[in-house]
């Protein structure tokens, strides 16, 4: 299937500058510096590009808000923190198509008239950081960034910053704090980065995959882009499959492709010829879907209607012989460990949920413990500086609703039904 980012398949090795130029690389930037920045924003808005970091916010809108916000200089941050367990799309893009990502970053900076761009990349991605630094050097020598980009009046500096490898460090405002030399703690919002971001100035924070889409859109136009995907989710998205399928990897598919195609045709089906018990379309923070929702189209609206979310596309499968209590316990413990602790409500909620799941697993607490989950989640709704506080909710509540028998088995016998 033809992709937008990976024209054929995921490249085996890093694409060099010349290879990229042969297939039209940096042509979008060459055209763009002849246009006004607002025209670039309009193309991105018309294309309907939505952020690929998980929230799906319209990119053109984010750029416009930043562009119109008072205060200079403006900044653009490429967010490659990528700490979602099982997500590898950003790493693959940075390692194989660094110039595609860099051109998108430069175009984004031009569109919002940013003076500086920061490439915030997971510190564990040694190869990606090296690859990006090499590509940046090539691009600078060719005049694509630095002083007077391609002879225009546009000046842009770019700097790579290593992102700490904990979950909240990938949150957009935590990224800003790290770049400012602080620890990775999310900020209270509002103000949002678009008005008061890096060093208090208007800032765009975009995911790696989002920025990788920019050059193709600017080069080929909004109308071309809208041919991929659905009306409300245009383009393609990269999905990450892990060891629960026969062919783990990253797969770029147009929005609206049935989930079944991703699992069966791309991933080669669930491992061991087992039946699927549940699907988590955006692990670890989305609701579980029952196996009969396997034909749900992979787009934001369809996933919401089915009761889950698309997130950043880490699709996880639960096999028929797995216990959902064990799955949920792992998720609750993950969020408890990853809560940064600055918001008391989040610390209390995530640690209590993990403790409660541990009790359920051990068969303690009976029915009354199950009734407390919803109360804790409802009490903490809307609290906390970032969204982590809300993340354990969908997996826990959907598991309780879809698989009550697994919880009952643990509580009545103290044993896991899977063993």
């Amino acid at each position, binding site marked *: 299937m033809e992709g937008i980012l990976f024209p054929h398949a995921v490249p085996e090795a890093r694409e060099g500058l010349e290879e990229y130029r042969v297939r039209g690389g940096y042509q979008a930037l060459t055209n763009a510096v002849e246009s006004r920045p607002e025209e670039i924003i309009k193309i991105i808005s018309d294309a309907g590009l939505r952020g690929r970091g998980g929230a799906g916010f319209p990119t053109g809108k984010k750029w416009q808000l930043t562009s119109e916000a008072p205060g200079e200089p403006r900044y653009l941050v490429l967010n490659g923190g990528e700490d979602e367990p099982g997500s590898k799309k950003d790493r693959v893009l940075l390692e194989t198509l660094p110039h595609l990502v860099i051109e998108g970053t430069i175009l984004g900076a031009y569109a919002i008239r940013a003076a500086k761009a920061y490439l915030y990349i997971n510190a564990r991605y040694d190869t990606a950081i090296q690859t990006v630094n090499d590509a940046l050097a090539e691009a600078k020598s060719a005049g694509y960034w630095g002083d007077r980009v391609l002879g225009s009046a546009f000046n842009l500096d770019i700097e790579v910053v290593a992102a700490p490898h904990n979950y909240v460090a990938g949150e957009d405002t935590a990224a800003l704090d790290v770049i400012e030399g602080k620890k990775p703690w999310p900020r209270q919002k509002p103000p949002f980065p678009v008005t008061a971001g890096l060093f208090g100035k208007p800032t765009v924070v975009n995911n790696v995959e989002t920025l990788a889409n920019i050059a193709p859109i600017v080069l080929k136009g909004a109308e071309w882009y809208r041919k991929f995907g659905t009306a409300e989710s245009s383009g393609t998205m990269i999905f990450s499959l892990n060891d629960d399928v026969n062919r783990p990897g990253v797969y770029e598919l147009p929005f609206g492709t049935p989930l079944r195609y991703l699992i069966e045709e791309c991933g080669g089906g669930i491992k061991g010829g087992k039946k699927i018990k549940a699907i988590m379309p955006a692990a670890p923070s989305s609701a579980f879907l029952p196996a009969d929702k396997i034909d749900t189209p992979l787009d934001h609206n369809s996933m919401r209607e089915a009761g889950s979310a698309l997130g950043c596309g880490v699709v996880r499968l639960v096999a028929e012989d797995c216990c959902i209590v064990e799955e949920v316990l792992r998720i609750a413990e993950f969020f408890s460990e990853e809560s940064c602790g600055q918001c008391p409500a989040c610390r209390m909620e995530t640690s209590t949920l993990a*403790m409660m799941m541990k009790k359920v697993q051990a068969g303690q*607490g009976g029915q*009354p413990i199950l009734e*407390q989950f919803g109360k804790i989640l409802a*009490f903490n709704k809307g609290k906390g500086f970032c969204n982590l506080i809300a993340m354990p909710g969908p997996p826990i509540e959907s598991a309780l609703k879809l698989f009550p028998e697994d919880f009952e088995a643990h509580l009545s016998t103290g044993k896991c039904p899977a063993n």
Partner: protein
Amino acid sequence: MVELEKRVAAKGLTDVEIKPYMCFGACQEGPNIVLYPEKNWYAKVKVEDLDEITEHLAGGPHVQRLDTIDSSLKELIYQLLDTGVI
């Protein structure tokens, strides 16, 4: 906590057990002392307040000025304590 233990011991309160809790979700209002199962919550407790709290434990009056926590949080935490999950 050590100061409270000293006062409780000095008062001879043998039916009082003092235990640390990781989090009641109100660290910004801390230090917090929850008397359970009576269900009294004292927030922003200072060393100077401990004598009055010890008096309360010995059957004295409720320390109204330290009872400032939001009632919905109290209810949630009391329920969790009742259920035995924290």
